[in-house]
């Protein structure tokens, strides 16, 4: 074993940070099981073998539900309803319980992810260094509220609550890539300030260079 590198077993570098799921605001009780999805009442045409395997590997224990959902999301990018049905059956859990868990945790997505995702950190360190102004600017540009996605599936705007890059605040993640120490002109001004904070022109230009569409589009 080399003295310079005594420990060859090392964790992979640069693992990506997963982002919270964005839920397009489906009305309560909209019961959106589309025709494309397998209806829970029917036998799914062919249960996904990958999912069956990962559940077996996990021991088919119901307390592993969250672990299983993480892995299903890794396969599909989100949690499709037929997959949830398969998970519920394999773990012998009621469907409503699986749905309750899947919809409780913000990192689980119940809808396919958008093509691009912009996530702004609203942790406290980012906030006091202008993260709030950054969020407002992004909302205006993308024409989206926080944790909302465009219906055409192009962009989603998400909020993060602290990814621990506080030393580089304020930060945002664009399709999983971190951009730090963003040029936000001023933090939220105190009431005593005579003038409102200047429009962060530099920030706007900078966002354009990142490929963010300029100007709000209709939702």
């Amino acid at each position: 074993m080399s003295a310079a590198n005594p420990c060859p077993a090392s964790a992979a570098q640069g693992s990506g940070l997963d982002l919270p799921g964005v839920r397009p605001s489906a009305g309560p009780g909209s019961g959106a099981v589309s025709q494309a999805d397998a209806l829970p009442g029917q036998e799914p045409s062919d249960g996904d073998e990958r999912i069956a395997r990962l559940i077996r590997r996990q021991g088919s224990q119901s307390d592993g539900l969250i672990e299983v959902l993480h892995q299903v999301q890794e396969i599909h990018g989100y949690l499709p309803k037929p997959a949830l049905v398969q998970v519920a059956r394999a773990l012998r859990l009621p469907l409503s319980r699986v749905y309750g868990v899947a919809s409780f945790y913000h990192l689980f997505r119940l809808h396919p992810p958008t093509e691009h995702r912009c996530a702004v950190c609203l942790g406290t360190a980012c906030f006091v260094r202008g993260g709030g102004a950054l969020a407002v600017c992004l909302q205006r540009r993308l024409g989206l509220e926080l944790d909302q996605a465009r219906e055409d599936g192009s962009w989603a705007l998400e909020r993060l609550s602290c990814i621990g890059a506080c030393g580089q605040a304020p930060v945002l993640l664009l399709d999983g890539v971190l951009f730090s120490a963003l040029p936000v002109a001023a933090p939220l001004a105190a009431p005593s300030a005579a003038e409102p904070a200047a429009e962060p022109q530099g920030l706007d230009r900078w966002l354009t260079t990142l490929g963010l569409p300029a100007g709000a589009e209709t939702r």
Partner: protein
Amino acid sequence: MVALPARERPQLRCCGASGCRHAGAGPLLAALRAAAAAGGPAADDMSAGASAALQPLEVRSVGCLRLCGEGPLLAWDGPEGTRLFGGLAPAAAAALVDQVRGVASLPLAADPALAGHQLDLEQPFFRLQRPLVLEGCGIVDPECIEAALAHGSYAQLRRVLHELSPEAVREQVRRSGLRGRGGGGYPTGLKWDTVALQPPGRRYVVCNADEGDPGAFMDRSVLEGDPHRLLEGMAIAAYAVGADHGYLYVRAEYPLAIERLRLALQQARQQGLLGQGIAGSSFNLDLEVRVGAGAYVCGEETALLHSIQGQRGTPRTRPPYPAQAGLWGAPTLINNVETFAAVPVILREGGDWYAAIGSGNSRGTKVFSLSGAIRHTGLVEVPMGTSLRTVVETMGGGDPDGGAVKAVQTGGPSGGCIPAALLDTPVDFESLLALGSMMGSGGMVVIGQGTAMPEVARHFMAFSVNESCGKCVPCRAGTVQLLALLDRCLERGATAADLEALEALCAMVKATSLCGLGQAAPNPVLSTLRHFRQEYSAAPGAGR
């Protein structure tokens, strides 16, 4: 610690924790390794006659080197002691390696690639630290159990298993005066006793690594920088309370911590330090990692237990406490990362030794993460009872633009804002509570003059609305109404009636919510109302 004693054979320690990775530590480490390999023979080829220039150069990836805001951080240990560099680009790697080997054409101070990047290790930020929990963080390679073992990890576990009874272990923890570092400050020894003294049967030990307070990254630093210390502390705890199974519940937002923890578990099992018959004793323990999925409320212990059981992360009424009825109804010991990580040093040096550090009813050291409007963003470990001024102004360097600090936020969404006038307050559990804030897990966010305090209160309330589990009505609906009230105050300035309504609802949510999240959600509002009331009635805040 960051500075090491002088050593003949030089080595480079490159911070590989999340903060520095975000600042580009990965490419820097690769460039340093390439430069080290290019300049001389590989370490194992070293022959006795190799010249100084061809000495093998060890380049290690280590945990947090503390001054995160200057990342990526790099420590060079050599005959003159340790030098620390910040913000080096990969292109500077060759120049630095030449300096280490003593073959550079320019002196260090004149090298354009390096000059201006050297950081003063004698500054108070480093000098006033008292690393106990972070003893090995920044020194050991967190992905290498041999490094951890060489640094003393698991020595206390071995000793305890062969020499001490579980009761004797608990006795040391009781004597240490250690209190839970997750926020509540419950006496750790008492908690351990409560679990140990339950009727015979299965018990569990659980590590709460769901560090969710925005602006808090202490636990992440331990997980990423010295995971074996945590595992050792947890194993000692399991032995002391009679548990043979345990879980580490880590938030999914910490992918690197999860990887390193899983690797550490695997290495510890291979070394016989986890599993059956640990270290030749009759003690068995298996630990598993459970990954959260984005829910702040899971930091609350009963919610965390539900989440480990694969359920919605909703809290339940206590009592019964988890120490009596936790995972699957069995007595369960839950402590957070920093608490477990303090255990090995307590066993090594003795409970009384630990209790001699700190002040009043807050003993030992506490790790804080400093961020916000502050010159030195990073991680500090100081004795309990150190004043806020020492931490924020002396160590943290105050406002980066030279202005005055306005307030310090401690305790995250459950804590409050302490005004600059009260910076001489000692940082201990009781003093912070008396000011309407709390110790919390150790996040300290400095707020500059430019920030309006009602905006800060609103920021935290929006956080609580977003993170409320929705089970009980005061938190589910009360926080929504509090946010609406704050919006009204911010839009047109608060009237006396607004403030009265705000305070009445805060009192109700605080007194009647089911769990700690709801009970503490009004704290940022109440503390800013207490210390910055005039800002609520002033002209509407601009910039939102």
